[in-house]
């Protein structure tokens, strides 16, 4: 076991891990931050996307020890300071961007990474960025719409399909 220390959602955390412990297991099992989901465990679905030093990564395909000293952000840290949903989360609710919600934490974290890089993406850019996030329920349309809306763009013209 090795002592691992990092910052998660602004708080310093530490715990004992093995070499083979995945970042997602450290978050879910050690820190009990179970908002980050494991859908496929094979780096295909994106349900486990978190940010490490500001970059979207699949937490199921990164060793926990690789994040030693890193700033990690998970879905639990996305709400505003008063506990209300942030703009992306609120847009997912307003535009029905989720059904079962299993993919949603990864979708929100990917969307946050996209909007930081590209504050006003086109619909095609949103779809391209979500290449590694799979949703079994929504058909993506309202997810794309929610992200466009969260970026402050008019989505009136994007009709529901």
């Amino acid at each position, binding site marked *: 076991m090795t002592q691992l220390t990092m910052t998660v959602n602004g708080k310093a955390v530490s715990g004992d891990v093995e*070499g*083979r412990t995945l970042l997602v297991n450290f978050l879910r099992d050690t820190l009990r931050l179970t908002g980050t989901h494991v859908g496929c465990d094979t*780096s295909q679905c*994106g349900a486990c996307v978190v940010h490490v030093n500001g970059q979207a990564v699949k937490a199921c395909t*990164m*060793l926990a020890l690789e994040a030693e000293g890193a700033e990690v952000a998970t879905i639990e840290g996305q709400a505003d300071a008063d506990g209300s949903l942030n703009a992306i989360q609120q847009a997912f609710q307003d535009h029905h961007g989720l059904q079962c919600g299993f993919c949603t934490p990864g979708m929100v974290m990917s969307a946050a990474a996209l909007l930081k890089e590209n504050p006003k993406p086109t619909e095609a850019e949103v779809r391209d960025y979500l*290449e*590694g996030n799979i949703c079994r329920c929504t058909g993506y349309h309202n997810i794309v719409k929610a992200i466009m809306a969260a970026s402050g763009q008019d989505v009136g013209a994007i009709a529901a399909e």
Partner: protein
Amino acid sequence: MYAFDFEKPGSIADAVAALKDEDAQALGGGQTLIPTLKQRLAMPSKLVSLTGISEMQGVCRGDDGAVCVGGATPHAVVAAEAGDYPALAALAAGIGDPAVRNRGTIGGSLANNDPAACYPAAALASAATIVTDHREIAADDYFQGMFTTALDEGEIVTEVRFPVPEKAAYMKFEQPASRFALVGVFVAKFADGVRVAVTGASEEGVFRWTEAEQALSGDFSAAALDGLSVPADGMIGDLHGSGAYRAHLVVVMTKRAVEAAA
């Protein structure tokens, strides 16, 4: 995953030393190796992470004009910083998805030499030099068939040097589930001739299509490829496409790459 120790050295020399231990293995971005370990297809005693080695990070321009990419540079950084070689930057920007590009590295891709990976096509078509901790290997000697390279046990890809062609483009026909190349073709036109490298198609891994190179060196246009074909023999056939289908796609994607480069 079987249990293993983890080390994260800060220099190439320390990494080479750490890899001398029996059954130690290098870890790049882990986008291939971690899934392999999960399936228990490998049992290293120790993983030596290369991601903390600053001398293996980033993109720069060498004195000879080559674009040099550190062996542990993630695809997203190549996409953002290899603007001096636009076709290379575009190839990196098209690998997998954003999260894969933030972790996966050029050294890992070239060491793995997946028959459907993108970087091998860029390295071979550009006549790149693969620099390791103790030697330089020409791309023509480096790729030795599916998942096989000239690398010795414990040898680390520290840098890849890409001569910059006059014109170049990479065209990938994506396998829709994995996003790897069903067939990918990289065409590079240098002052002294054209090089064409094909990935995704052959059971031998990445290869140069020499007939197309000759035709294009005389006349760099898609029309110069009319009448050329690749034998379906030795092409990968699987549920995504037969050997004949892949052989056909090689010609189509080469034409598209020439058109995109011209």
